[in-house]
C-alpha cells in the first residue's frame, strides 16, 4: 500500500490532482459566467489575481491566513459585481466579438494596473500549512498538508456553488434568469440583479484559486494567473461550458494529463499539451465531454 503511494505513477497523480483542482476552480467560475450571461470572461484569472492582491495589501500587517482568504474572496465578489455593472452590461445583445475584445482589454488593464500598483515581483501569503511533502521510509509521497487543503478548498467551493444552485430559492432564480430571462422577468425575478450576482459569485470562486496559488511554491505575480486561465478555459471548454461539475472534473483530468506529459514526454511537448488536449477533446465532442446540450450542425 505504502509502496504504491510512493510510486512514480501515484506521485504524478497526486501532483496532477493538486494542480488540476485549481484549473477546475477557474473553469467553474468561467462556467458560472458563461451560463448566466453567455460571455467568456477572458479576465477571469486576472480578476482573481487583482482581488487577491487587494486582500494581501489590506492585511500586510499581522497576516492571518483565514482573514486574508476571506477579504480576498470578498474583494473578488465586489470586483465581479462591479465589472458586470460597468463593463459587461452594455454588451448584452451585441455581437460576440465586442465582448471578447472588451474582456481582453480588461485583462490588459488589470495586469498592467497590478504591476503599476504592486510591482511585477512574486508575492506570497504564508499559509499555516506546510508545503513539504510527506515522507515514508526515505521515500516521498507527493502530497503535502497544503496540497490537501488545496483540494479540500476546491471541493468546498464546488459543493457551495452546487448547493446554492440546486437547493436554494436564490439558486432557482439564478438558473431561471440564465435559462429564460424574459420569462423570469415576467415572473418577478430581478434578472439584472441576478446577473450581477452571478458574476460576483464566479469572481469570488476564482479568488479562492488565486489565494491558494499565492500560498504555493511560485507565489502570485500579476501575470502568472494567465496560465491558470488558459488551463481553466480548456477545462471549462472540454467540460462543455455548461456543466460546473464537468469543468471541475475536466480540470482534474487535464492536471493529471499535463503532469504525465511533463514527466514522461520530451520537454518541448509540454508547452503544446494544453492546445492539443483542447483540440482533440473538442474535435471528438464539440459540445464538451460533460454537456447534455446538442450542438448545432453545419
Amino acid at each position, binding site marked *: 500500500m505504502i509502496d504504491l503511494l510512493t510510486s512514480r505513477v501515484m506521485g504524478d497523480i497526486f501532483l496532477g490532482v493538486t494542480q488540476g483542482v485549481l484549473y477546475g476552480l477557474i473553469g467553474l467560475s468561467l462556467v458560472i459566467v458563461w451560463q448566466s450571461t453567455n460571455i*467568456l470572461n477572458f479576465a477571469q484569472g486576472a480578476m482573481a489575481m487583482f482581488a487577491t492582491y487587494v486582500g494581501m495589501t489590506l492585511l500586510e500587517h499581522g497576516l492571518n491566513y483565514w482573514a486574508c482568504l476571506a477579504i480576498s474572496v470578498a474583494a473578488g465578489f465586489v470586483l465581479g459585481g462591479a465589472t458586470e455593472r460597468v*463593463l459587461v452590461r452594455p454588451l448584452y445583445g451585441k455581437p460576440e466579438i465586442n465582448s471578447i475584445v472588451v474582456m481582453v*482589454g*480588461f*485583462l490588459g488593464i488589470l495586469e498592467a494596473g497590478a504591476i*503599476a500598483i504592486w510591482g511585477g515581483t512574486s508575492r506570497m501569503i504564508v499559509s499555516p500549512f506546510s508545503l513539504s511533502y510527506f515522507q515514508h521510509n526515505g521515500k516521498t509521497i507527493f502530497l503535502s498538508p497544503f496540497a490537501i487543503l488545496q483540494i479540500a478548498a476546491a471541493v468546498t467551493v464546488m459543493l457551495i456553488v452546487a448547493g446554492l444552485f440546486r437547493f436554494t430559492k436564490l439558486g432557482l432564480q439564478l438558473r431561471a434568469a440564465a435559462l429564460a430571462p424574459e420569462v423570469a422577468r415576467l415572473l418577478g425575478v430581478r434578472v439584472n440583479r441576478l446577473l450581477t450576482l452571478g458574476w460576483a459569485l464566479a469572481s469570488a470562486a476564482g479568488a479562492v484559486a488565486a489565494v491558494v496559488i499565492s500560498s504555493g511554491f511560485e507565489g502570485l505575480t500579476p501575470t502568472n494567473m494567465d496560465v491558470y486561465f488558459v488551463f481553466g478555459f480548456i477545462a471549462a471548454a472540454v467540460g462543455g461550458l455548461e456543466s460546473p461539475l464537468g469543468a471541475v472534473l475536466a480540470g482534474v483530468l487535464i492536471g493529471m494529463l499535463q503532469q504525465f506529459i511533463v514527466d514522461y514526454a520530451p520537454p*518541448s511537448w509540454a508547452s503544446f499539451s494544453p492546445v492539443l488536449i483542447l483540440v482533440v477533446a473538442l474535435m471528438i465532442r464539440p459540445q464538451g465531454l460533460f454537456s447534455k446540450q446538442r450542438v448545432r450542425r*453545419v
Partner: protein
Amino acid sequence: MVSIKQFIANRPTSARALATLVATIALLGLAIIVDPLNDTYLATASIMAIAIVGLSLLIGLSGQVSIGNSGFMAIGAFTTAIWAQHHAHFPLLGSMALSVAVSTVAGIVLGLPSTRLRGPYLAGMTLAFAFAIPPFIQSLGTFAGGSGGLYFPTLQTPAWFASAIGEKDNPLAANNTWGAAIAIVVAAVAFFFMANFFHSRSGRAMRLVRDNDVAAELVGVNVARTRVLAFAISAAFAGLAGSLLAIIQSSVLPQTFGVALSIELLSLLVLGGLGTLGGAMIAGLIAAYSDSIVSRINSWTGIDPVSNLGGSLKGIIFGLILIATMLLAPSGLAGLGHRISRFVRSRVAQKKALSVSETP
C-alpha cells in the same frame, strides 16, 4: 477623357495598383527625407500594419476572433533567424518566402479546428496557442537560441542604394533608410494583395460565411475551406511581419512574442477599424509611435518611466483604448472618419437643397 470615378469602376485592379504605386513612391520619398530615428518608426509602422491587416482579414472579414497572431509572428521571425544562422549571406526574399510558407502551414494546422469551433471556443484556443509558443521556442534549446534569442549579421545596405540617397559616408543612416524602404515595399505588396482579396470572390465568400454560414453553404461556398483559408492568409501576413521584424532588428527574442503582443495587435486593429485597409494603416502608424507617445505622456505627467507605473502605462492605455473604442465607437478611427465625412456631405447637400429651394 475618362473621369477618375469611371476609371476606378471599370479597371479596379489597375486603379488599386496605381494607388499603391503612388503611395509607395511617396512613402519612399518620405523615408529618404526624414532622419534615421523616424526611418525606424516608418519601418515599424509598415511591419505592424502588415500583421494588423492580416488580423483584420481574419476578424473583420471572416468573423473569427484570434488572439494567437503573436504566435505566427514568432514563427515567421524565428524561421528567418534560424535560416540566417546557417546561411551567412541569406537572401532577403528567400528568407521572407520561407517564413511565409512555414507560418502558413502553421496557420492551416491551427485553422483546422475552426471548422468545428465557434466564437469564444476558437478565441480561447488561439489564446492557448499564443501562450504556448514562447516557451516552446525556448525549449528547442540552442537551435532556436533558448531564452537568450538569436542574433545574426545586420542588414547590408547595397552600395547603389547608399550612393543614390547620398548617404555613402553615413552607413548607419543609409542602413535605417534601407530597412524602412524594404519594409515599405513589402507592406505595399501586402496591402495591394489584400485590397484585391477583399473584393475577390473568396473575399466575398468569407463575408458571407461570417454573416450567415447556412446561406453560404446553400449557395455553394465551401464553409470549412473558407474558414481555414482566412486563418492561413492571416498567419502568412503575421509570419511576413515577423520575418521583416527579425531582418530589420537582426535579433529575435522569444519573450517579445507573448500574449501581450497579441493583445496589442487586437487593440490597434479595433482602434483603427475592423475589416478596413485604411484602419490597418492608421493602426500601424499608432503602433510605431506609441512608445514615443507614451514617453511624452510620462514627461508631461512627471511619471518616472522606470517606475512600476511608468513601465505599465502603455498596457493600461491600450486596455482603456480597447474598451472605450468597443463601447463608444465600435467601427474604430476609420469608421469615425467615414461617419464625419458622411455628416459633412449630408450638411453640404442640405445647404445645396436649401439654396436651390430659395432661388425661385
